[in-house]
């Protein structure tokens, strides 16, 4: 058991514990902060796997973007400190049973599957390799999904504004 494995086990425990606290904490704001820690743990797992670009994207988009969005929406829809009602015991037990059954099934299947590991070649995940393949128009390039993602982001931007716009502001402005 070398140092790399110890680091992995610490990261994995951290991720799982904070994720579990994120789905069970009674106060919604605490739950969000636990989710933040869990996402940080996943980013550090990507660092552990030596994939710096994915770790950076994870940190910037999830930790810096989505969690901040969630915190904003909590402040707009909740009193910050009131606890959520506890789910009924029956639902908790059934959900725990379903999840444990799923975990047991998947772990059994994964454990008994023989993965054919290739002779060790190191993955080449430099930022320039990723970037060139992302905008390449050759075979295996990802320029079309890249452009589609930009259209999707624009559409969701406009959609968010339209959905969250207060009804009737246009008339008020025109009267003013």
């Amino acid at each position: 058991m070398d140092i790399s494995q110890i680091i992995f086990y610490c990261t994995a425990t951290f991720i799982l514990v904070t994720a579990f606290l994120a789905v069970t904490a009674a106060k919604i704001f605490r739950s969000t902060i636990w989710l933040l820690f869990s996402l940080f743990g996943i980013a550090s797992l990507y660092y552990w796997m030596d994939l710096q670009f994915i770790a950076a994207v994870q940190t910037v988009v999830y930790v810096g973007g989505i969690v901040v969005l969630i915190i904003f929406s909590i402040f707009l829809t909740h009193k910050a400190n009131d606890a959520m009602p506890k789910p009924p015991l029956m639902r908790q037990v059934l959900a725990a049973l379903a999840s444990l059954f799923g975990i047991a099934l998947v772990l059994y299947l994964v454990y008994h599957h023989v993965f054919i590991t290739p002779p060790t070649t190191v993955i080449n995940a430099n930022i320039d390799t990723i970037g060139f393949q992302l905008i390449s128009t050759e075979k295996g390039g990802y320029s079309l999904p890249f452009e589609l993602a930009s259209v999707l982001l624009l559409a969701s931007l406009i959609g968010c504004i339209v959905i969250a716009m207060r009804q009737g502001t246009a008339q008020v402005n025109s009267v003013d």
Partner: protein
Amino acid sequence: MSQSPLIQILFLSTGLFFIGMYGMLTRRNVITLLMSIELILNSVNINFVAFNKYLYPEKLEGLFFTIFIITIAAAEAAVAIAIIINLYRSHQSIDVDEVNELKW
């Protein structure tokens, strides 16, 4: 324990997925449901990256899937939060048990 750490990473992502599923099944608040979905998406991302790194290290397809999933998750979270704010305005509540007009 001489094999690659792939199987341990798969154990981790399985645990994360089913923690997210437990949250989906127990919580009744739309924002916490969204957080559970983020956990599930993250476990899928870990799987993609791990399979790419340890089984097909000469390609980069898993990394691209992860990048696009992160992009689309950001768009999805933004739209979901716009819907949540609109829902709160019309119902004064974001509990899924109280918002049931479309339930058949």
